[in-house]
């Protein structure tokens, strides 16, 4: 039987080709061609993925490993190849990445139209897509790490896209450095894997684990904790979440693609991908669950008081990622991936709609100066509404199904699970609250732009206009997905993913679950109601509440002063140490000391050797001949003195 031709490398290589073309020649090409290139290659990539999906639908067996992949590293028995593997999990991820990715590319054409460095933006975006597909398709940890680092690079480049803004550059650096901390954990985890398994191949590690669980629980826990550190870095969980809010300095479509829909879910993907290892370590699972829940709650609280529309969404993303971690932590990997998918739809939509609003208001991001945009931007408003309903978990929107699946799984996960479920439910309330707060502040009520005239002329709302169709089209598509994305149902989804993620922990599908679902919807409705109370009519209720809860509000607005604490505890000491090493040790001891030493040695030997350098060619030749004779004598000494059979050895060696 023929191996099905899937052209897996093409999925990654198409965007790379786009990157090369735009990156190398983009500055000299007209915009139309740049956009054509930027759109065409992701679309081709998506087409390859869709074809693969169609073949899977037609009954093709998964996983498919690409054969004949070139070797990257071969040291002794240790092999790493550029191997791509397609299985159910990566197929889902690929559909999300390339599909949503393409939509966001499309949106960007409209959004970035008037920006400087148009070609640069699209080159980076294609580069990101390349690395993301590599990450998802990778058949081993190291190749995954390549994608992992690569998306980090693309993210860095895109966060710092507005090169004339210092804050953008700083945010990029922050993201990069914080991610490095996580990568450190990932790397240590990989080293431990090599030490214990002798391979980095997912499949081989899986079989080794299934065959005979060679490693003890402690080792598994250690490896898992290292990997978790990596995942918290990339997926912005406690304690490494701090970079994501700052990453909002990048263009909004970037926030949608990288910092909401795809890259930040890489941690979740990684945990789901290596669940066999996590299953061995209850401790690690617990850590994942607790970290996820804590992050979800924590970020949701902060999101309640943010005024920047994008930052609200950023904290919301962190919070939702926390849900996914919770899902992983309680063993409901398919639920986590399910939420990952629906979240990709509605969070991308939220960001894109927010981008549309910002675009319509010529760059205004402060919600306090928005309001009343419902009339001016009807399409944006309705799509945004769908997304808000989805994220809050209203039936029958996508978010309901996935979040519900995670919470149900948590509820069934023992005592700890019950506690986590409780926190998760409260978080759901908060989520609903802050999302509707955003919704009210942005679209309903009166336009507040006129109240704050600070050089922008009249209020923005007066000029607010609907975005062009090329931006609205992705919104509409994503809105449809946000509404319908959950209708697959967790059972079918989990059934599809079962070969990869293992048996889902869904036992009781009876009354308990129904009860939980109803409860979740009720909680979401309560959140809406509260938001309506505070922000529905005017700001007075909100102001009063803020007055009465001033300390908490200040705490939240300060984002728990985590950034400041990190600065004091980590950044300062490191800087101080660096200054010490560079200044005293480096400058005085190493640089100057060695310079003195070197100059002394060189000067002295120069005095001695100067006389040799007569400049006469024949003298040089004489020394050369003497040297050649000496070398030859040395090499042939054995032969000449008859000490060994040198001649014979040469003779036979050459034969």
């Amino acid at each position, binding site marked *: 039987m023929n191996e099905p031709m899937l052209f897996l490398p093409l999925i990654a290589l198409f965007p790379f080709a786009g990157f090369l073309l735009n990156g190398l020649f983009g500055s000299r090409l007209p915009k139309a061609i740049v956009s054509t290139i930027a759109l065409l290659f992701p679309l081709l990539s998506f087409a390859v993925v869709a074809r693969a999906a169609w073949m899977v639908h037609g009954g093709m067996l998964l996983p498919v490993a690409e054969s004949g992949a070139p070797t990257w590293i071969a040291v002794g028995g240790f092999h790493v190849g550029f191997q791509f593997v397609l299985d159910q999990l990566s197929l889902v991820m690929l559909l999300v990445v390339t599909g949503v990715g393409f939509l966001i590319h499309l949106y960007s054409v409209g959004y970035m139209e008037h920006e400087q460095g148009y070609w640069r933006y699209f080159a980076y975006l294609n580069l990101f897509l390349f690395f993301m597909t590599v990450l998802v398709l990778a058949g081993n940890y190291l190749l995954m790490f390549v994608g992992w680092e690569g998306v980090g690079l693309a993210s860095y480049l895109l966060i710092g896209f507005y090169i004339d803004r210092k804050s953008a550059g700083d945010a990029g650096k922050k993201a990069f450095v914080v991610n490095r901390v996580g990568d450190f954990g990932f790397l240590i985890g990989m080293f431990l894997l090599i030490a214990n398994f002798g391979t980095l191949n997912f499949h081989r590690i899986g079989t080794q684990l299934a065959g005979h669980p060679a490693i003890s629980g402690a080792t598994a826990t250690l490896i898992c904790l290292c990997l978790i550190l990596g995942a918290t870095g990339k997926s912005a969980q406690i304690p490494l979440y701090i970079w994501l809010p700052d990453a909002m300095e990048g263009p909004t479509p970037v926030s949608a693609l990288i910092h909401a829909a795809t890259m930040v879910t890489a941690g979740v993907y990684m945990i789901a991908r290596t669940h066999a290892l996590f299953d061995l370590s209850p401790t690690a699972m617990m850590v994942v669950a607790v970290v996820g829940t804590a992050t979800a709650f924590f970020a949701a609280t902060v999101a309640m008081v943010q005024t920047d529309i994008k930052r609200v969404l950023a904290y919301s993303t962190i919070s939702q990622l926390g849900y996914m971690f919770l899902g992983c932590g309680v063993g409901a990997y398919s639920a986590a991936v399910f939420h990952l998918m629906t979240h990709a739809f509605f969070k991308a939509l939220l960001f894109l709609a927010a981008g549309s609003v910002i675009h319509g208001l010529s760059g205004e991001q402060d919600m306090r100066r928005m309001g009343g945009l419902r009339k001016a931007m009807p399409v944006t408003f309705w799509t945004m509404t769908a997304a808000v309903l989805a994220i809050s978990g209203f039936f029958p929107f996508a978010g309901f199904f996935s979040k519900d699946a995670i919470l149900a799984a948590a509820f069934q996960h023992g005592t700890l699970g019950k506690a986590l479920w409780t926190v998760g439910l409260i978080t759901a309330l908060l989520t609903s609250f802050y999302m509707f707060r955003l919704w009210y502040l942005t679209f309903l009520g009166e336009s507040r732009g006129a109240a704050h005239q600070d050089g922008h002329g009249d209020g923005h709302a007066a000029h607010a206009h609907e975005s062009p169709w090329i931006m609205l089209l992705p919104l509409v598509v994503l809105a449809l997905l946000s509404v319908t994305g959950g209708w697959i149902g967790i059972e079918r989804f989990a059934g599809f993913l079962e070969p990869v993620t293992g048996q889902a922990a869904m036992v009781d599908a009876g009354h308990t679950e129904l009860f939980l679902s109803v409860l979740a919807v009720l909680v979401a409705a309560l959140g809406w109601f509260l938001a309506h109370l505070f922000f529905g009519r005017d700001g007075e209720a909100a102001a009063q509440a803020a007055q009465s809860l001033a300390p908490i509000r200040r705490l939240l607005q300060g984002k728990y002063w985590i950034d400041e604490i990190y600065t004091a505890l980590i950044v300062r000491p490191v800087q101080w140490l660096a200054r010490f090493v560079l200044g005293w040790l480096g400058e005085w001891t190493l640089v100057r000391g060695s310079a003195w030493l070197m100059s002394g040695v060189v000067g002295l030997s120069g005095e001695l050797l100067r006389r040799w350098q007569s400049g*006469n060619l*024949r*003298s040089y*030749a*004489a020394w050369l001949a003497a040297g050649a*004779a000496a070398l030859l004598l040395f090499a*042939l000494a054995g*032969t000449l003195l008859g000490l060994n059979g040198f*001649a*014979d050895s040469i003779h036979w060696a050459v034969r």
Partner: protein
Amino acid sequence: MHLVLFLIFALFALAGAANLLLQKHPINSALSLIVVMSSLAVLYLLLGAEFLAMAQVIVYAGAIMVLFTFVVMLLNEGREEKTWGSHAARVVGFPAVVALLAVLASAILRAGRHYGMVSLSDGITTTQDLSRVLFRDLLLPFELTSVLILIAILGAVALARKDDGNA
């Protein structure tokens, strides 16, 4: 027959080399070197390397040495003078040369008993054999040499051209 041919042309080669050393005028040295090279070409033929023999004549005798004679003619320096600038050449160089020859010769003589004989009926390496290796196994080095030669041409032109300012 082989022995006779070998002796004749080995003698030619040695005599040419000696003449190169003894002659005072560079042009004579150059002609002696041509004699050496041509004799070596014959020796290559005896060893069955027919393509190399012709390449030896065409490249060495026909191209490289023409360059030498050209430079000799153009610069027209005349006979070389006897100067005594290098002490080391006499004190270090000539003993070193003797040592070099001694080491080489004794090594060859010692290893030589393992070697076979060369005779006219040994068969030849045809141009086809050579090109098969050259254009398949060693294609990259071959292409690199062409780049090297191109660079050498450019370098020679750049070096030998008079400065526009001074011309």
